């Protein structure tokens, strides 16, 4: 088991190294000159040269690569060309808000998606199954950004039930102290028992969370259903029934545990999708998160920032995969 984890870990490291190499390559083949961008539009040749030295772009490629690698390992992702701030610091400021959205979406996917998939599989080819399939496949077929726009139109503009965007109302922000512990607002509110801010924030969270959670819920429900159907065809399920075990037990215990591995993978996968979905949705909801940051970086071609986010999300993804793999490894069928 330990040796397996070590092996997976080293694979993860290899993958990360590969990711860093690819991003380095992308960064070096782009046509525009980062030094010129750093120095600003009216910079003289000397200033550009100075910027080039500052950014280490005057060194041979190998040296640059080595430096880049070392920096990445230290968690130093370089400087934003736009703001001249360390990307690491900027990410630190933006990640929590996005992370919170992703976590909430993940929880929704787990508590809604999985049961939905299970019932759908249980009722295969019955009305409930058709409805749930239509819902889950529909959920993964909707353009997220579009859903966000329409939710705003309905709940803010027409019904005036929920706020348009942001995390807290302005009044609240000025009158009350906004707790900052982890940077994840709802969580911080709970930690500091700041309920006024909590309930105000909660209203702001509803629309973005629904928009973002839709995809993972659908994906998880769909995958759980098909994984479960596969398992339900196995001999040991028929055998379990032949021993007179109750159908409920067979479904929820015997079959479900066998789908754990694939469900874990789907959940990880859905996290990756969710993260990227926030890139499309955060701007719509004025969410102070990573997605908003990327959107700006993309429009201003702040490529170190784009790459910084890429490396960060990839690292998350690799770690999550590792976790999923370890969960799967708990499956006794995987011989270690």
């Amino acid at each position, binding site marked *: 088991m330990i040796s397996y984890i070590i092996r997976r870990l080293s694979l993860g490291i290899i993958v990360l190294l590969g990711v860093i190499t690819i991003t380095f390559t992308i960064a070096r083949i782009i046509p525009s000159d980062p030094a010129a961008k750093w120095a600003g539009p009216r910079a003289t040749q000397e200033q550009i040269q100075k910027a080039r030295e500052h950014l280490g772009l005057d060194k041979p490629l190998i040296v640059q690569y080595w430096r880049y690698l070392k920096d990445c390992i230290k968690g130093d992702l370089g400087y934003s060309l736009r703001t001249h701030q360390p990307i690491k610091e900027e990410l630190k400021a933006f990640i929590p808000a996005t992370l919170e959205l992703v976590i909430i979406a993940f929880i929704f996917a787990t*508590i809604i998606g999985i049961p939905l998939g299970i019932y759908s599989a249980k009722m295969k080819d019955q009305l409930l199954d058709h409805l749930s399939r239509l819902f889950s496949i529909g959920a993964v077929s909707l353009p997220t950004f579009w859903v966000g726009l329409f939710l705003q139109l309905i709940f803010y503009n027409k019904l005036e039930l929920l706020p*348009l965007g942001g995390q807290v109302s302005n*009044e609240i922000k*000025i*009158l009350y102290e906004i707790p900052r512990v982890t940077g994840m607002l709802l969580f911080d509110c709970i930690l500091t028992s700041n309920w006024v801010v909590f*309930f*105000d924030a909660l209203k702001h969270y509803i629309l973005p969370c629904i928009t973002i959670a839709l995809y993972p819920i659908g994906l998880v429900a769909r995958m759980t259903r098909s994984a479960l159907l596969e398992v339900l065809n196995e001999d040991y399920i028929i055998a379990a029934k032949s021993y007179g075990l109750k159908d409920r037990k067979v479904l929820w215990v015997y079959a479900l545990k066998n789908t754990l591995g694939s469900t874990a993978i789907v959940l990880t996968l859905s996290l990756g999708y969710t993260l990227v979905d926030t890139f499309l949705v955060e701007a719509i909801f004025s969410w*102070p998160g990573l997605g908003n940051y990327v959107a*700006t970086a993309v429009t201003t071609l702040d490529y170190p920032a784009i790459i910084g986010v890429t490396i960060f999300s990839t690292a998350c993804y690799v770690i999550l995969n590792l976790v999923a793999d370890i969960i799967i490894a708990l499956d006794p069928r995987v011989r270690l």
Partner: protein
Amino acid sequence: MKKILCLVIMICILGAIIAGCSGGQSTQVTENKLKIAYYAFISEPYIDFDPSVEYSNGIIVLHNIYETLTRYDVNTGKIEPLLAEEWTSNEDGTVWTFRIRKDVKFHDGAELNAEAVKKSIERTMDLQMGAAYIWDCVDEIKVKDDYTVEFVLSYPAPLDLIASAGYAAFIISPNAVDKDSAWFNEGNAAGTGPYKVQQVTKGEEVILAKFDDYWRGWKDNQYDRVIIKKIPESSSRRQLVEKGEAQITSGLSVTDIKALRENPSVNVIEGTSWTNIIGFFNTEKKPLDNADFRRALCYAFPYDEVVNDIKEGMAYKSVGLIPRGLWGHDDNLMQYETDLQKAEEYLKKSGVNPEGLKLELTFTSGTEELRNMAQLYQVNLKKLGIELQIQEMNWDNVWEKSKNSKPEDRQDILFMQWWPDYASPMSWLYSLVHSEEDILFNLSYIKDENLDAMIEEADMLSATDRAEAEKLVIEVQKEVLDKAYFIHAYDDKSVWAADAGFKGFKPNPAYEGVVFFYDTYYE
């Protein structure tokens, strides 16, 4: 185990939601005495919080925190005193003396004096970031006495104008002058302005609080707090103003503005802007090196449709290169009209065969009006048999492409907005027309010694003999129009939507996007 955990989480969330819906009303926020002005801004409120460095959106925040020596007054069209009470210059405009206002306090308690002014400007000049180049003419800054400062220039320049610049002309507290950019970017600021920083969230929002010791004093109906917040979606900004949540916003789409005009609780405020939209021809590439061909293209541009239908009247047709409201603008200059017949004639005259001709048009992505304009232009050119390929790109990619060392690899037509760093037409002439060794903004790649000479002379004269300078500026424009170096698409208007109770705001073209919140009040 897992089931129990799920259950607990679910109950927590459900409970929270129920409590949240009911709790929202019960914990009604106690009637606050603070009056808040909420400015929903299209983009990040600032990029670099260092006033010597920032060369972008940041002025909308910084002009409320810091002040400059002088300020361009939109009502009089003149430079008015601010931190400088009065100023003089010698005859050839190379030595400028400013008398600094007394009893002005910085947010950190320091007093404003000549030394503070000298250090602030020198800091900006030393850093050489952002718009620091505007001080290039300054040779030396001398402190004459506590409240008098003298600028010695290496060549004549309108320093009163320069001191009113939107960027890079802020006066910083002596305690902060020695700090590096990082200190500012942690959210620190120390100016003399009416508001000080309460809280900043990088990339998102800035909250400003009234500075009680502000030298101009306070009235009751002014705003206590200012929130400037990034709201990228036009529809979101519009909804915020409609619902009375935000006090003011700008950059709305024309349809949103049109709808808001109908709304009695919203004021649509229009003002002049010194921004105009210009199309650049790649004159170093065939067939665009042919002036007749360029004239044909100019005649094919849908000027009226753009102003009337795309901008819905929220723009003027350009006349010449310099936008109205700025000296050097002349309404009597010739301007191209949409006239496909003439275009056809010039096309024939140029001898260029339009068959199979593909022209590439680039502009910065995300600009709705430019995109629509480009599409209309595309339709018109198609009638001439020319295929226009529209390429929306990042500004950096647009720019990179335009600076390509091989003219054939550059775009054919490039659309760009241009606005001055301070109130002077020289910004257009020097940047866009004057020949450049390394291409920067002369994106029609004009190389004309005659024009260069005229521009240089006009610049010299601008500090001393405005009338003569203006004549030269008009001359240059005539030549540019005749050669059809540019498509003069339109001069923008500055259009704002504000809550009906938000008063005292007037857009100032010298400070694009800035709301001087001190001037505003609620009713």
